[in-house]
Every structure is written in structure tokens, then in C-alpha cells.
């Protein structure tokens, strides 16, 4: 437990200090969402209708942006070698790193939604619905992305490959995240159905992501 707390706290510290990139994701999210009304035009009804989808897409792209460094930074400075030589199971270390990563990059996206909802002409109720679905869905994005980050760890420019690997896997999360938001805002579907599936997707990706990423890291060290 001591070792896991140590790596969790280290990653949080690294993310919040200068150059850590903890705030980059949320800034990117802000830029993407602010650009949308300029591209689409001042059609308030249209913006309100596609708002949840735009927010979800922005959050998806923003969470991808920071994933690349998750293991690559540890690989480049040799930390990953030492992490592998510990008696702490790699799966648990990966899980601790992923949790720290979500807290510093995923959670800020959720917190930014009520503000960004204003740009998308979403009222308080709609913003809350999107924030709730993102709160349930962004862990899935992190843990699915974990697999891509582990697979591309040894590549110098792994970011692009990471996006190509990860984005197709996030389609179900996107589908149910947006449909749960829309169900809460306009109906007619009950909110609970897609939201429950979204939560199930998150739980599944947590389990699969941790084991797949650890296996990829072990294999990638060769």
C-alpha cells in the first residue's frame, strides 16, 4: 500500500507542478469548445442540440492529448525499469498511475463543463447532465487510453499511434455518453438506460485496461 501511495502522490505532484501538463488538457478542451460556435454560427437552437456531443468530443480529444506522456516519461528517464523491479505488482502500479492521471486530467474536464456549457447554450440542467455523464465516462477514456499508452511506450512519437489505437475503442463510450446526456435533456429515452451501460463500460475498461496495459508494458520492455 505504501508503494502505491508513493507512486500515486508522485504522479499527482508531477502533474500539478510546472511543466507537468495537468492543466493542458482542460485548456485544450476550452479551446475546442470555444471554437465550435464560430464554426457553426449563431444558431442557438442548433448549438443547444449538438452541445452535449461537442462537449463529449472535446473531452475525448483532450483526454487523449495527455495520455501519451503517461508511461513514455517514465520510460525515457529509466523510472519504468525500476518500477518493474519492485515487488509491487505492475498491475497495481499501473492502476495507481491511471487513477492519479484521471484525477489530474479527467476530473478537471468534468469541472469545466458547467462553464463551457454556456458557450453551447446549455441550461443548468443540461450542463449538469453532461457533467454527470462525463464524470462516469472519462474514467473509461483514461483506462482505455492506458492500453494505447502502454503499447506505444517505446516509440519516440507515439502520440499519433496512440490516437489511432485508442479512438476506435472509445466509440461505445462516446455513443452511450452522448445518448445519456441527450436522454436527460430532451428525452424521450429514460436517462437510466444509457447511463447504466456507460457505467458498465467504465467498470469493464478499468479491469481490462489495467491488465492489458501491464501486459503491454512487460512485453514492450524487451
Amino acid at each position: 500500500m505504501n508503494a502505491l501511495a508513493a507512486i500515486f502522490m508522485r504522479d499527482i505532484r508531477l502533474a500539478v507542478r510546472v511543466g507537468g501538463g495537468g492543466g493542458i488538457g482542460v485548456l485544450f478542451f476550452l479551446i475546442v469548445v470555444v471554437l465550435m460556435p464560430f464554426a457553426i454560427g449563431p444558431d442557438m437552437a442548433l448549438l443547444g442540440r449538438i452541445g452535449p456531443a461537442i462537449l463529449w468530443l472535446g473531452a475525448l480529444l483532450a483526454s487523449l492529448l495527455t495520455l501519451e506522456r503517461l508511461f513514455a516519461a517514465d520510460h525515457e528517464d529509466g523510472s519504468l525499469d525500476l518500477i518493474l523491479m519492485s515487488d509491487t505488482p505492475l498491475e497495481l502500479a499501473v492502476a495507481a498511475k491511471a487513477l492519479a492521471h484521471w484525477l489530474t486530467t479527467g476530473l478537471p474536464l468534468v469541472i469545466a463543463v458547467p462553464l463551457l456549457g454556456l458557450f453551447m447554450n446549455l441550461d443548468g440542467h443540461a450542463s449538469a447532465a453532461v457533467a454527470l455523464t462525463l464524470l462516469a465516462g472519462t474514467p473509461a477514456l483514461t483506462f482505455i487510453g492506458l492500453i494505447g499508452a502502454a503499447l506505444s511506450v517505446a516509440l519516440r512519437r507515439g502520440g499519433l499511434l496512440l490516437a489511432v489505437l485508442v479512438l476506435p475503442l472509445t466509440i461505445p463510450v462516446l455513443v452511450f455518453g452522448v445518448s445519456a446526456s441527450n436522454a436527460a435533456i430532451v428525452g424521450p429515452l429514460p436517462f437510466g438506460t444509457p447511463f447504466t451501460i456507460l457505467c458498465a463500460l467504465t467498470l469493464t475498461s478499468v479491469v481490462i485496461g489495467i491488465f492489458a496495459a501491464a501486459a503491454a508494458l512487460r512485453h514492450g520492455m524487451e
Partner: protein
Amino acid sequence: MRLEGVALACIRGGREVFAGLEFSVGGGEALLVTGRNGAGKSTLLRLVAGLVRPAGGRLSLSDGDPERSIAEQAHYLGHLDALKPSLTVGENLRFWMRYLASAKPAEGAEYTALAAVGLGALTELPAAYLSAGQRRRLSIARLLAVKRPIWLLDEPTSALDRDAQDMLADLMRAHLSGGGIIAAATHGPIGLDRARELQLGAIRPGIRPGTPP
């Protein structure tokens, strides 16, 4: 305690780095791995550290901790320092102490280790401001702060000034006299007398490198 490699072979990128490699090093002994560039010195150390899988042969450690693998009882000091520039010297060391030690490290153990490598005054300095030699010293402090019986040192004296090389030699002698094992890849003398030498790249059948002359 005795670390033995039997008929070790390693293939990297389709090329055979070494094959039929045999060595044996006991507690209190040092093994100097020498050889030309590309002979597989670093690869051998990474293999013992469990970071590279052997293509053949086996590694064994007798009288070690049966609950832990060889890698979990070994310190690896590679070319990379495993330091985070935005953390302070003390935070970097404390992290590895908490992560690598199986028991909770003693209070203040990091100060003892940092003082031993001559970084006692720099505990609060971000590691980004350290010179190459100081980064190396901080990595060496890790070996002192967490007790592990096997030290795998890859070019341990690189970037170290003369004082630090003497300090490292003293630390290595202290480790050996405590019954520890050292395997070091090196091109020059590292200040250990009576160390066995394992020369890579010059292995002929019938000769068992690593056996004392």
C-alpha cells in the same frame, strides 16, 4: 548467497549478443563485466535485472529471499538516472525509498543516504538543477537508502569526479563486506581489488569465464 548464470544466451533485434555465457558470483564478491562496445555488458546486467528475457539458459540465486525474484532483490544503476526534474532531490529519493522498500523506511533515512553521497545540503533543490555527476550521486543514494543484496551497476563511475569515484569505491567495499553481490559493467578500474572479471565478446567453448584464475 550465490548468483549463477548457466548457459545464458541473449538475442536482441535478431542478432545474437552472447550465448553459452556462464558466471558465478558469491556473497561478498564483485564481478566486473568487461568487453568491447556492443559486447553485451549492459544487456547482461539488464538480463539479471529481469528487464530483458534470456533466449536460453537460466539464472539462479541460492540463499536469497525465496519469496522474491532476483530482480526484486537487485538494484539496477543504469545509464538513466530515473529522476524527475520537477521533484526535489529529497522527494526523488523518498519516492524510490517508499516504492522499492518492502518495509516502511526509517524516518530520516534519506538524509543519511544523501549525506553519504555528498548531497546533504541539496535536499530541497529541484533535481532539474543538478549536474550530471550530482544526478549520478543521487542515483547512488538510492542503493544506500533501500537495502538490496545485489547491485547491478552499469558504468557506475561515468560522470563522477575523482572524489565521488573514491566515495563509490568505499560504498561498494562496504556493501561487499556486508555480504552483498556487485556486478558492474565497466571499461576501467572502479577501485575494487580482488574482483573477478567476466570478459564478454571473447568467449570460447571450454572456458568458463568468471571462474577465478
